[in-house]
């Protein structure tokens, strides 16, 4: 694997981390497997694209994508999921139905063409790193991924909200019993997780482009990452993203047509030995 491919793998892993961290936060705390996460990513990309092309600002595009997708997340959580609380299976299948609706809605609005979010002038072109000439934007994605990891790490480990989220992952009932409004923590987490999907959509939309089945592809990667990393673990998502991102790139180099298959290997191995993932713990309930 050359430096160039290694960087490709790492930048892809960084994008996957942004998307999958939102997915696992929601899964870890609320026990909701949000299968609409891929659709949220795609919508975030489309909305970010629309905002960025109209305002000419990538940053505004990112903010717009995060806000809009968080709003959609709000509708999903407060408008629909509230009716099926406590029933895992019904929740999952409901989010799946929601994903179909969102995806079809996106198809109505943006059609079947593929879009690429415009890269800001500052990040265009390439630069020399480790002896190879590499696109600046992808390095930006890599750095953003690291920054977001650090931010989430600080949020989870050094803030009151983070402590509540971590406590909620371990035992939500106990947190509630100690006088915390866990519903509000749940909602904030859901919105944060959704916003991360939206941000991922914009970031990914600038180098992977956006098209109608992109949501399904990103969802599979997110699922694989959570299955590998374990439920609700930030480090797990980080390691899972690195593994999946690098393996996928390696796969694309070695067996271009079967790249998808390559992430299957570690997932299979892992499930045989650790069904809850590398960093997953059994639920206490």
């Amino acid at each position, binding site marked *: 694997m050359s430096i160039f491919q290694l960087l490709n793998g790492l930048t892809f892993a960084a994008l996957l981390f942004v998307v999958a961290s939102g997915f696992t936060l929601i899964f870890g705390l609320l026990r909701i497997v949000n299968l609409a996460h891929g659709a949220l990513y795609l919508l975030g990309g489309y909305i970010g694209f629309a905002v960025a092309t109209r305002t000419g600002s990538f940053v505004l595009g990112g903010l717009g994508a995060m806000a809009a997708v968080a709003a959609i997340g709000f509708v999903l959580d407060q408008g629909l999921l509230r*009716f099926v609380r406590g029933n*895992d299976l019904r929740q999952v299948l409901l989010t799946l*139905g*929601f994903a*179909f609706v969102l995806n079809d809605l996106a198809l109505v609005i943006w059609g079947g063409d593929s879009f690429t979010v415009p890269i800001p002038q500052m990040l265009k072109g390439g630069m020399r790193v480790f002896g190879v000439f590499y696109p600046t934007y992808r390095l930006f994605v890599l750095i953003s991924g690291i920054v977001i990891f650090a931010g989430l790490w600080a949020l989870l480990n050094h803030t009151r909200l983070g402590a509540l989220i971590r406590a909620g992952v371990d035992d939500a009932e106990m947190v509630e019993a100690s006088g915390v409004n866990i519903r509000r923590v749940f909602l904030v987490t859901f919105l944060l997780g959704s916003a991360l999907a939206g941000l991922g959509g914009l970031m990914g939309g600038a180098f992977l482009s956006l098209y109608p089945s992109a949501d399904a592809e990103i969802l599979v990667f997110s699922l694989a990452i959570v299955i590998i990393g374990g439920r609700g673990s930030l480090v797990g998502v980080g390691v899972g993203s690195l593994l999946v991102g690098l393996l996928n790139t390696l796969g694309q180099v070695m067996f271009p047509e*079967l*790249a998808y298959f390559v992430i299957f290997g570690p997932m299979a191995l892992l499930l045989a030995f650790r*069904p809850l993932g590398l960093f997953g713990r059994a639920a206490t309930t």
Partner: protein
Amino acid sequence: MTETAGASQRKFAGPTGRSALVVLIVLALAAALPLGLSNYQVGLATEILIFGVLAMSIDILAGFAGRTSLGHGAIFGVSGYVVVYASAQAGLPPATAFLLGVLAATLVAVIFALLAVRTSGVYFLLLTLALGMIVWGICLRWTQVTGGENGMRGDVRPALLMAHRTFYWAVLAAVTAVSYAMWRFVRSPFGLTLLGIRDSESRMRSLGYNVPLHLFVGFAVSGFFAGIAGALYAMFNNFVSPSSVALAQSVEGVLMMIAGGVGTLFGGFVGAAAVIALENVVSAYTERWPMVLGLTFILIMIFAPEGIIGTLRALLTRQARQSPISTKGH
């Protein structure tokens, strides 16, 4: 365990004179059906039969082992791909292609099962979903073999069964045999063990049952039946594309199973009829079928998670107080 087994035996009372009569009447009606229908409608009826088998194969796991699979569309589709590839590209006779398709689907199910039997609940759902989507990804990308996005076309149907009605009758015969086999399977001692696993895995384990092995065999058998449905569908359509293995296929199958009633087995046909009828009505007015499918799913999850039949029955017999598990399939 004894309670469960007792209840189940009552539920699956042997073919008494009355139920045998009902089966005969239903079969006679189904056989006479195409006489009064247009070719298009016969096609729809054929589809209902085929998808009924898919829904039932999902129900074997969901209703009888408590594991809802979102990967059965992929198993179904793989069978179709192999059937079309074997007959159109490799030039094998239809019967061989059919067998190869079912074999391939069973193999895929075996691989899925090896990975999935240690999981339950949401993890099982997640894993089967991910596995199914990997199959979809391969079908989409492996252009040389699968034809990529364009899929593959090929005359798979044997010359003898070219006419719509003849094909319908052939499918009806196959589906009857397969349904009987599935019914026998779920009411066999093995099927009752699966029921026991659904109701209490830990109890079955402490009774000495090898839970993963039972789930593995259950999954493989379920995949075998999904494979038969897939092979029949390939013959019906003479075409496969990534959308035949896509998530939507699994989701439709699960929706049919749920709409018909989880754990009712033959409810699969009712669910298939409801979903296919809805799809046709909707498609006549709009191209937004995925949206309607999604909305239907959301509504069923919120209002009728036990399926249309289950909910109606619960309303009629006022069993609402009972737990959802115990109202299943009674």
